[in-house]
Structure formats: structure tokens, C-alpha cells
């Protein structure tokens, strides 16, 4: 099916070109038939790319090694679950996934807005199809996933990178790409609005759910990546300020700023230049993130390595940045603000503060990420900045951000009186003071952690107070039980209370980060079986070495695990026995011997983790296989010498016995193993906080019931004087 796959991509490329042309022509001549044809080109693009993607997925599931990509990124011993995710472990497959998601989200927005934004939509369609043309062009001319292997078709593939064999990898890349591609939707509509000078809030209202969905998907993707790092990379951290991690964080930060400031434009007609600049910058940063992963210009564990895609991406970025600046500059008259800030004590002012902090954070991350390139350009030598540099600037900014996320919900739109504000601050400030005191006395004295705990408590108390007052007001008007009033209140004000929940989740997440990074206790130790190490209040004992041969579904050897059982004791009480191991995946490299190929391939760490509400006990082992080396070498010479003359079946049986013997020997005669042991407080709060953020985002994004809209519309459809007297329900 290689030909069919290639043909689909060529068809996708041609469809994009046609659709972009038809949309621009339809927009200029106001011909709805051409506009509709352009929109349908997006639907057709989605269908075509979906067929190509299904062909590739099927090839992976069938282990069809006539596909170069399947051979290089899968094997018959790769579990089916991971074979499904293997397409996006490669440059080519992930580009195809990017295009698939772009066409899917573009189809969705254009379908829902087909009877609205009639002037803006054709140009937005052209921009979206412009992105489609770019990615389809890369797939057709530079990085085709449908290349065939020259010569014979091998019986076995290289296999999937073991680091990617983690459940998060099934969802993490699609979520990140969904975030990136969804952010191109508001970007495209902003360009359309600027081109047509239709710069009212209509395009913002139509694309806001997509901006929120982009923010949600990207956020979930980032957290899943952090969890993968924590459980899979064997260093015990969840965030390393890696360039690719940073690349996903930057559009998320500007996207967060946009989601806040856009409310000011919707309500007050203010900040038009700022909002359109933010959305354009977010679109550019989304492409920049994709560029960083694919160009190989910066070193990262997550990048695809050296490639030829840097130049095309650079050209695209230059066009996007240059075009955005030119458009905003030429529309300065239409982007004039309609109102001014009524008061510095207003939610608008708090949102402005939050925007400045978020953009400053983005700038810090940008500067630190690109510092190697900047330093090389200035001094000629490449130097980079590490986590301490990022922490120095982002930690104070994060503290201010959490403070503002607590203050925002306590202030009214337009203007608040100082007396009201002071009254609203009373409970949250009191709770924050109590938490500050309790943590200072019972836990420790890290100033930033203390401040974050107090601010987290401030936010949670503020959100709780808001919910309580809302429920009380609702019950005063309509009666009913407490839970019923709460549900109705949230249902009727999804955006507001979804947002509050996001703030609460962010506060919990930041408390988890502050605690786990400030109070983490770590040890790197070398232990023989039976020896113990103390980490904080915990004693970890290396109980016994373990080893096993793991067979794939087809009976062939998938990997060899060498590990350890580690007992965790606190205060004389046994809490848990953890198991950690390192997996060795066989290599098909021709330079390796018949036995050593099982030990010289890629490796992956499986950590032992006892996760709890208040702390995680985490350990990873680095087994020492040095005692096995002489035996492995001896095995190589036997199988390459006299063993090579044996019949295949007999040879395979003998090889299996050799591997069993080697794994048994590791357990019998084990040298000391190196362990990394951590006790980290409140790590689970990070994942729990992220789940609350996601839940809040879903509540905010969920469309309001139509009945509510109808009731309100009906109430306002009568004559204006009568309407103005009508009370509006909570």
C-alpha cells in the first residue's frame, strides 16, 4: 500500500493548494460557492490524510517491513499497544499525525462557523490550508512515511525506542500536537480578521472554545510528558527545562494570557492590539515548538535529531512573524481601544497583571532555551543555562502568578470598592497566614516553598469562599438543597466557575512543585544485597537481585530485565517492597555477536515507586553486568564458531539456554548495584492539581445548555424598558 499512501499525500497537497486558492477567490469576490468549495477542501484534506494514516497504522500493526518506517521503528516483538503508537515515534509519522490533527480541528471549526464569520472565514480557511500545504509538502517532498526498503524485506525490524514504551506515549504526543494544531485555529482567524478589518469580538467568540481546547490539550500533554519523565527516565525529576519541554510551555503561557485578556476585549472592547498580538505570538510559538523538535538545532532527549527540516520551518516562521507584524501595524486604526480601565481595583487590572507575568515567564523560557544559539551568535562559543538559571527567574514570577490567580476571583469587573475588596480578602488571607505558620513550624524553612504554600492556601480559600457565596445567593433566590444549588450555579456560569476550578488546580499543582523540589531528599548509593541506605526518615534495603527473560506475544524474546527488590521501612514498620529493573532490548546490529546483541541494545529503566498523598518513595537501579561480560564474550565466540554450523532450531534452543543461564547467574553471583533513591513530598499533588485544572477547563469549554440561552433571549426580546426592570437570576 506504499503507492496508495504516497498518492493520498500528493492528493492532500493538491487539495490544500486548491482550497487555499478557492477560499481567497471566494472571499474577494464574495462568491459563497467558492468559499464553500474551499471549506470542503479542508474536509477532503482530513479524509485524504486519514486514509494515509490508516494505511500507515495498518502497516505497523501488520509489521509490514516493506515500509522503511515500520522497519526502523517497530518489530514483531513490540507489543501491539505500542505498535499503534509507533507511527508518531518517527519524524515522518509524527508529521503525518500533525497534518491529520490540523485537518481535523480545521474541519471542526469551519463546520461550526460556516453560517457565521462570512467575511473572515474564507481567509482563515486559506491560512489553515496554507499550514496544510506546508506540512503536506514536507511529507511529499522531504520526509515521506511511505518509503520502501530497497532490496529484500527483512523478517525483523529495529524496534521501537524503549523509552517510548510507556502508556503516556500513547496520548502525550497526540495531546501536544492537538494543542499546537488547535492554536493555529485562532491564529488563522486572527489573520482573517486583520485582513478583512473585521476586528470586532465575533471572531474571538467563535474561536474561543478552540483556544481553550488548545490550552487544555497542550497542558494535558505537558503534564503527561512530565509524568513520563518521572517514571521512565530514571533521574527522578519531572521537569528539566529541556528545550523541547520549554517549546511546549511557551505557547501554553501565552495562550493562558490570551484566554484571560480576551475576556477584557469581549466585555470592554479593550486590549485589541494586545489580544491579537498574543494570539499571533501563540500561533508562532506553536510552530516554533514543532520546529525545535524537528530541526535538531538544540540538543534534547525529546527531539528527532538532525534533519533537513530546519530551513523550511525557518522560512515558515519568518513569513508568520513578518506577516503578523505587518498586519497588526497596518490595522492600528481599527485596533484602537473602545474604553479605558475604570479602576486599578478591578478584575481587568488583575488580568493585566497576570498577562504581564505570563509573558515575562514566556520571555525567560525563550531566552534560556535559545541561549545556546544566542551565545554562539555573540561570542562564537555555545554555552547553555541550566535549571538553576530558569528557577531564579521563574520561581518569583510563579509566586506572583499564584497570588494574582487568588486575587482575580475576589474582585469585580469594572470597579470594586476598597471596603468590599478588603472584606473579600479577609478569609483567604487568614487561611494563608495559618498555613504559613503551620508549615514554618512543622515542615521547614524554605522561603519560596513557604510563600507558595501560603499563596496556594490563599487561592483555595478564595475559590472556596466564592463558591460558598454563590451557592448561598442561589439558594436565597431559588431555594433547593446545597448540592443542587452548587450544580445549578456552576451549570449557569460554567466559564466563571470552570475558571475558578482551574485556579484551584494550578495552586495545588504549584504547591506540589514547591514541596517536591524544596524538600526532596535524594541519595545515590552502591549496595550489595542485604545492605541498607537511609533517605530522610526512610530506610531502603536492597533485598535481592532479580532477573527475567520477557517473551513477546509471538514467543520471541522481547527483553531481558535485571533488577532489584527494595524494602521500604519507616519507624521500624515495613511499608512496601518496591521492584525496580533495567530492561535490555535486543539489537539487530550486524556488528554485535549472537549473545551480546541481547545486552548491547537500547535500555530502559523501570522505577520502583510507592506513591502516596504526602510523599513518594522512588528508586531506580543501575545493575552492574560486568561479571557477565566474559561469559557473554565466550558465548559469542561459541555461537560464531562451532555453533554456527548447528541447525537453526538447535542453535536457537542452545541460545535460549545460554540466556537463561546468564540471567540465573546474575541472581546467583551479583555485584553491587547502584541505586538512586528519593523521598519527594507532595508529588501526587502535581498530578492531582493537573486533573483539577483539566476538569475546570472541561467545565469552562462545555457549551451552556441551549435552554438557558433561549430563556434569556426570550426575556430580552420584549421591549427594552420592561426588560431593564427584570431581575437577572444568579
Amino acid at each position, binding site marked *: 500500500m506504499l503507492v496508495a499512501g504516497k498518492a*493520498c499525500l500528493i492528493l492532500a497537497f493538491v487539495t490544500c493548494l486548491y482550497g487555499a486558492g478557492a477560499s481567497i477567490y471566494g472571499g474577494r469576490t*464574495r462568491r*459563497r460557492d467558492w468559499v464553500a*468549495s474551499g471549506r*470542503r477542501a479542508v474536509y477532503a484534506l482530513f479524509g485524504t490524510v486519514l486514509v494515509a494514516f490508516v494505511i500507515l497504522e495498518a502497516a505497523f500493526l501488520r509489521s509490514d517491513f516493506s515500509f522503511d518506517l515500520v522497519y526502523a521503528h517497530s518489530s514483531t516483538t513490540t507489543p501491539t499497544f505500542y505498535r499503534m503508537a509507533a507511527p508518531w515515534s518517527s519524524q515522518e509519522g509524527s508529521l503525518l499525525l500533525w497534518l491529520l490533527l490540523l485537518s481535523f480541528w480545521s474541519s471542526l471549526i469551519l463546520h461550526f462557523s460556516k453560517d457565521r464569520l*462570512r467575511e473572515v472565514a474564507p481567509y482563515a480557511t486559506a491560512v489553515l490550508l496554507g499550514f496544510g500545504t506546508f506540512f503536506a509538502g514536507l511529507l511529499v517532498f522531504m520526509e515521506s512515511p511511505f518509503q520502501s526498503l530497497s532490496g529484500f524485506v527483512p523478517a525483523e525490524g529495529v524496534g521501537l525506542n524503549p523509552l517510548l514504551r510507556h502508556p503516556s506515549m500513547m496520548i502525550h504526543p497526540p495531546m501536544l500536537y492537538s494543542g499546537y494544531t488547535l492554536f493555529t485555529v485562532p491564529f488563522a482567524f486572527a489573520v482573517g480578521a486583520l485582513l478583512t478589518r473585521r476586528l470586532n469580538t465575533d471572531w474571538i467568540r467563535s474561536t474561543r472554545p478552540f483556544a481553550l481546547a488548545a490550552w487544555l490539550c497542550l497542558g494535558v500533554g505537558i503534564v503527561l510528558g512530565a509524568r513520563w519523565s518521572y517514571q521512565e527516565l530514571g533521574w527522578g525529576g519531572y521537569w528539566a527545562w529541556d528545550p523541547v519541554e520549554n517549546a511546549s510551555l511557551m505557547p501554553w503561557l501565552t495562550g493562558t494570557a490570551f484566554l484571560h485578556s480576551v475576556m477584557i476585549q469581549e466585555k470592554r472592547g479593550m486590549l485589541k492590539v494586545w489580544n491579537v498580538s498574543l494570539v499571533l505570538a501563540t500561533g508562532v510559538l506553536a510552530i516554533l515548538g514543532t520546529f525545535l523538535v524537528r530541526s535538531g538545532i538544540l540538543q534534547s532527549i525529546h527531539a528527532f535529531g538532525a534533519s533537513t527540516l530546519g530551513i523550511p520551518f525557518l522560512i515558515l516562521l519568518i513569513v508568520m512573524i513578518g506577516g503578523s507584524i505587518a498586519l497588526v501595524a497596518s490595522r492600528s486604526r481599527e485596533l484602537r481601544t473602545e474604553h479605558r480601565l475604570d479602576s486599578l481595583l478591578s478584575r481587568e487590572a488583575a488580568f493585566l497583571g497576570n498577562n504581564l507575568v505570563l509573558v515575562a515567564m514566556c520571555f525567560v523560557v525563550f531566552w534560556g532555551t535559545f541561549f545556546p544559539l544566542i551565545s554562539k551568535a555573540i561570542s562564537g562559543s555555545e554555552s547553555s543555562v541550566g535549571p538553576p538559571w530558569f528557577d531564579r527567574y521563574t520561581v518569583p514570577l510563579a509566586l506572583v502568578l499564584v497570588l494574582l490567580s487568588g486575587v482575580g476571583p475576589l474582585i469585580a*469587573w469594572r470597579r470594586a470598592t476598597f471596603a468590599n475588596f478588603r472584606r473579600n480578602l479577609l478569609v483567604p488571607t487568614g487561611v494563608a497566614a495559618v498555613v504559613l505558620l503551620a508549615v514554618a513550624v512543622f515542615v521547614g524553612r524554605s522561603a519560596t516553598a513557604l510563600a507558595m504554600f501560603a499563596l496556594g492556601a490563599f487561592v483555595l480559600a478564595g475559590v472556596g469562599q466564592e463558591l460558598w457565596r454563590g451557592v448561598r445567593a442561589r439558594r436565597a433566590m431559588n431555594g433547593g438543597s446545597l448540592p443542587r444549588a452548587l450544580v445549578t450555579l456552576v451549570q449557569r456560569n460554567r466559564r466563571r466557575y470552570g475558571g475558578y476550578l482551574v485556579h484551584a488546580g494550578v495552586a495545588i499543582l504549584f504547591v506540589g512543585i514547591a514541596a517536591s523540589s524544596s524538600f526532596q531528599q535524594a541519595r545515590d548509593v552502591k549496595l550489595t544485597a542485604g545492605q541498607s541506605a537511609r533517605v530522610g526518615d526512610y530506610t531502603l534495603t536492597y533485598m535481592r537481585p532479580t532477573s527475567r527473560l520477557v517473551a513477546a506475544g509471538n514467543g520471541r524474546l522481547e527483553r531481558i530485565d535485571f533488577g532489584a527488590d527494595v524494602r521500604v521501612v519507616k519507624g521500624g514498620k515495613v511499608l512496601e517492597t518496591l521492584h525496580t529493573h533495567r530492561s535490555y532490548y535486543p539489537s539487530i546490529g550486524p556488528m554485535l555477536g549472537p549473545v551480546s546483541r541481547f545486552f548491547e541494545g537500547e535500555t530502559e529503566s523501570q522505577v520502583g515507586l510507592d506513591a502516596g498523598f504526602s510523599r513518594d518513595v522512588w528508586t531506580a537501579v543501575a545493575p552492574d553486568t560486568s561479571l557477565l561480560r566474559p561469559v557473554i564474550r565466550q558465548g559469542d565466540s561459541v555461537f560464531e564458531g562451532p555453533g554456527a554450523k548447528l541447525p537453526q532450531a538447535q542453535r536457537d534452543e542452545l541460545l535460549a539456554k545460554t540466556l537463561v543461564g546468564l540471567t540465573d547467574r546474575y541472581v546467583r553471583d551479583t555485584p553491587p548495584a547502584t541505586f538512586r533513591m528519593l523521598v519527594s513530598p507532595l508529588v501526587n499533588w502535581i498530578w492531582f492539581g493537573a486533573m483539577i485544572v483539566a476538569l475546570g477547563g472541561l467545565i469552562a469549554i462545555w457549551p451552556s445548555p441551549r435552554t438557558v440561552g433561549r430563556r434569556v433571549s426570550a426575556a430580552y426580546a420584549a421591549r427594552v424598558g420592561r426588560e431593564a426592570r427584570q431581575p*437577572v437570576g444568579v
Partner: protein
Amino acid sequence: MEYLVVLVVLLVVVFVVSAPLRRRGVQEPDVDALREELEAERDAKYGEIRDADLDRRTGKLSDADWRTIDRTLRGEAIEILRRLDELPER
């Protein structure tokens, strides 16, 4: 088989994309865009009125401030409704 798949995909794409062009071209009326814009503005204004009311009930706005803001917002809503009424019927 492969070529059949390609042919089917090609035909479907051509059929889907050309469908609107096979119908008579329609000029886009201006009034619809304006109506949509005003309706969206009206709905947003209703949202603002509800928000201000909720702010008052949850103690973030004093009664005096709320009255001023509410009066302004309702005045703006009235203006939008008046402009909507002036548009010709759809």
C-alpha cells in the same frame, strides 16, 4: 487494489470539493453578517449583566456600584436591540 483505493479517494475528493460549484453561484448578503455581529454583541451584553449581578450577590460589588454598572450595561443592551430592530427582516 492499491490503484482502486487511490481512484476512489480521488473521486470522493473531487465530488466533495466541487459540489458547491455545481450549484448556481450565490452572492453573500451583507445584512446577515451585521445581524450575526449584533446578536453576538447582544448575547455578550446579557452575559455581562448576569456577571455584574452575580458579583453583587457574592459581595464583590457594592449596591451603589452595581446600580451604576447595571444601568450602563442595560443602556448598551438597549442600543444593540434598537440596532437589531432596525435591520430588515431575514
